[in-house]
C-alpha cells in the first residue's frame, strides 16, 4: 500500500525518516541488506530519483554503505546508529516541547503530564 505522504514537505526527507525509523527500530538490522531503490520506490509509490536522493543523504551520514558488489547495507557501526537515533529523538522532543509551549505548557508541566499518563498505564497493566 502506498505510504501516505505529506505532499507539502519534500518527499525525499520523508523517505529518509522512514528508512531511519526502520533502522532504529531494528527492522533493518545493522549489517543487513536494504531493498533497492526500485523496490522501495514501488513499495511507496514514489519516484525512484527521490528515493535515490534519500539514500544519498543516508550515505553521507554514514548510516548506509554502498558496496560495489553486494548493494546497500545498513552500517555495522552501532555507535553511528545510536548517535543518529539520539539526534533524531532529541529533535523530536525539542519540537514536541515547542508545540506544547505554544499551548502554554512549560517543560515541567509536560514532565508532570508524562508521569501521570505513565501511572495510568501501569495501573491498567500496561507498559511504560
Amino acid at each position, binding site marked *: *500500500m502506498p505510504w501516505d505522504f505529506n505532499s507539502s514537505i519534500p518527499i525525499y526527507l520523508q523517505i529518509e525518516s522512514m528508512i531511519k525509523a526502520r533502522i532504529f527500530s531494528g527492522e533493518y538490522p545493522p549489517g543487513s541488506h536494504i531493498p533497492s531503490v526500485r523496490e522501495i520506490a514501488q513499495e511507496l509509490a514514489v519516484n525512484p*530519483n527521490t528515493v535515490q536522493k534519500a539514500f544519498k543523504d543516508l550515505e553521507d551520514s554514514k548510516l548506509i554503505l554502498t558496496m560495489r558488489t553486494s548493494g546497500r547495507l545498513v552500517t555495522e557501526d552501532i555507535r553511528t546508529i545510536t548517535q543518529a537515533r539520539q539526534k533524531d529523538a532529541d529533535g523530536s522532543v525539542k519540537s514536541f516541547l515547542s508545540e506544547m509551549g505554544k499551548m502554554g505548557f512549560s517543560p515541567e508541566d509536560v514532565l508532570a503530564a508524562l508521569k501521570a499518563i505513565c501511572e495510568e498505564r501501569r495501573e491498567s497493566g500496561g507498559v511504560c
Partner: protein
Amino acid sequence: MSESIVSARELTKKYGSFCALDRMDLDLPLGRIVGLLGPNGSGKTTLLKLLAGLLTKTSGEVLVDGMEPGVKTKALVSYLPERTYFGSYMSIEECADYFSDFYADFDRQLAYDMLGTLRIPLKAKFRTLSKGSREKVQLVLVMARRAKLYLLDEPIGGVDPAARDYILKTIIGNYNPGATVLLSTHLISDIEPILDDFIFLKEGRVVCAGVADEVREAQGKSLDELFREVFKCF
C-alpha cells in the same frame, strides 16, 4: 542540449484561429518522470500528440532525441492516448503480436508477466473487456516497450483507485535512467509523489516549471497547492 530527449523552441500549434500551443519553449532531460499539468484545453494533449508525431506543428521547432518527429522518432517514443486505440476485434495476444512486430524494443515477456498479474486472459478480445481493463492493457503494452520517451495522456483519469495504484506502480517499476516519462493529468495529488519535475501549462504556454521536491523544500507547498495558487479562478 544533447542530453535533452525533448526540446522545443517557440513551438506553436493552431487550429484555425484557436491557438493550442503558443510559442512554447521546453527542454526535457533523460531519466526524469515529468508531470504535464494544466486545466482542460491548456494544450497538454496537443503537446503529447505533437511529440508522438500525430500532429504537425504550425511554427517553431520541436525535436525528439535531436530529430524532428517522424518515422525514426516513432521507434523510440511510446505513446498512450486517452482513448482505446486497438481494434476491438483484436485479442490481447494479437495486440501483443502487433507491438512485437512493429517495435523492436517491445518486451513481450514483461508484457505477459504484467498481464498475468492483472489476471487478464491473453485470448480475450478487446471488446469484451471493461473500460478499466482496457486502459490497463494499453498501459501494460505501452510500458512494456523499452522506449526512450513515454508519453502518457491522462493515464489514471477515469480509473478506480486500485487500478490507479497499479498504474502508478507500473510507471515507477518501469522507470529507467535512459528514458523519460512525460505524463499529463489533472489529478495532481494522486500523481505528485511519483514526479521528478513538473510543468504547468496554461493556454498553450508554460507558466511554471521546476523540480517537485524543490517546491516542497523552498515553499513548503505541495504541487497540488501550488497549482491551485497559480490557476485559481476568481
